């Protein structure tokens, strides 16, 4: 982004406020950009009309993205600045990665073209990082939930069979091997059978 040019106005529209904040902060480190976000409760199209950005970075999970498709078709009568999905014909892989990551970019059609690829790349990197963190978090939550199930099943087994923890663990382990299932699945089934017995 060259010197002496007016700042490029970038609107960040993310359904995830944490990620939207992180992306905005990343982009703000570039002084040639003026970064704005879509306030909660405001429709994307209203934010575009209000801020008249040059570039819009949109989280593809937003249902109101459909409205952006209409700006171009309706712009003649409404005298609004037409915008269009940014497409890099020479770099289909970049576009596919962007769609894969869940982000896309719109350009104002009448604005002289400036390279927006660095913005899109920054957004892709951040979205990927958030996705990895989310996956790691959900994996950690899954392990924790399984651990709770197994511990609970062990407690029931120890009480019912007057066994110690090692015996309870061995029983779950053996049953998992016999039925080719995970210990957590066996624990869940055992707990369900206990609940059923309690009800009957």
């Amino acid at each position, binding site marked *: 982004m060259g010197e002496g040019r007016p700042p490029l106005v970038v609107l960040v529209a993310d359904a995830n406020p944490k990620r939207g904040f992180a992306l905005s902060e990343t982009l703000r480190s570039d002084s040639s950009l003026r970064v704005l976000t879509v306030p909660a409760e405001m429709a994307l199209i209203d934010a575009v009309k209000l801020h008249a950005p040059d570039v819009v970075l949109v989280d*593809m*999970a937003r249902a109101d*993205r*459909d*409205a952006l498709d209409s700006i171009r*078709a*309706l712009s003649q009568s409404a005298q609004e600045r037409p915008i*269009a999905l940014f497409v890099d014909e020479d770099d289909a892989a970049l576009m*596919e990665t962007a*769609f894969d990551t869940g982000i896309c970019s719109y350009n104002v059609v009448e604005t002289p073209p400036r390279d927006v690829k660095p913005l899109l790349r920054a957004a892709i990197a951040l979205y990927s990082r958030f996705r990895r963190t989310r996956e790691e978090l959900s994996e950690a939550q899954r392990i924790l939930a399984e651990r709770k199930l197994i511990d609970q099943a062990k407690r029931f087994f120890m009480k019912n069979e007057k066994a110690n923890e090692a015996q309870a663990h061995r029983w779950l382990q053996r049953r998992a091997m016999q039925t080719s299932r995970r210990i957590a699945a066996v624990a869940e089934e055992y707990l369900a059978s206990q609940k059923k017995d309690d009800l009957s």
Partner: protein
Amino acid sequence: MKTPIRIGVLQLADSAPVIMAHQQGLFARHGLETEIVVSPSWANIADGLAWKKLDAAAIFCPLAMMTALGRRGHDAFLRPLTTISRGGNTIMLRGVNPVETIWHAGSHGRRAFDVWRCGIGRRPRIAVVHIYSTHLLILRRFLKMIDVDMENDIELVVMPPVDMIHALSEKKIDGGCVGPPWGAEAERLGVAFRVGGSSSVFPDHVEKIMVTSGKLSRSEEQIETMTLALQEAITFCQTPQYRQDVIEALAASLAEGGLALPAEATRAVLPEGSAEEAINFMSGALQEHDIEWIINDMASLGWLENSEQQTLMRWSVSGAMTSAPPVPL
């Protein structure tokens, strides 16, 4: 490991045949491994088809056509397989209906519009679900029928159907044209009244079609089996005795593989339901009369060149064929 065929749908009752074909194992019985992708927006469906994120989708003709013409910035080899549904769109308005019926063509409708607009007190804001939608074409024809000019007499906005109900109650919009079951749901909640829709503007117009994209469009064997599975699912969804199964499947949460649709309104809009704008599930190739009016209306809105109109007319085939042949665009 085989990669499943990714089929895009939106949270609409006319996505039912795709959901049922997946859940009831009809795709699997025909040797197709499928994954249902519930998309938050039509733009995601169109971009998914154009950018290899979806192999197929249940979609309306205008957006499928614009996508096939490369309007998403990328050539997309789209192939129409079969029609899925006919009708089902509701034109609804907030406030009080000045007449006791739907609005009829000519001065009856125009007078009702004028009285209603006085009550609204502004140039009415009417929403559609996407600019390139059947809904917009139906709305435009309806307004024309009652001598109202879409370009000047109303303000057109685009909004997801689920948001329309909230926007009507908040008076952010004054009406809309939506797909099933959202029109019936708005009526049920008392936030809008129906003035027209598919049944009064263009009865049994083709609404959702199944299109394939990319590699899947070139696989004759998969095209044939997918069409057969869909035909079976469409017959299933059209059969009254399976209605409860369809309602339960559509009302189930997204996590359970459903579409989280409101059950009561869904019951009303399924075939032979109580809603005036009930859906008909019908399979078969697109016929000339199915798409001619769509292409003409799209052209009159300035969306299509002459040559593009000719190209798109090739999406229809003679009634003898079960599915349309590939049309490279």
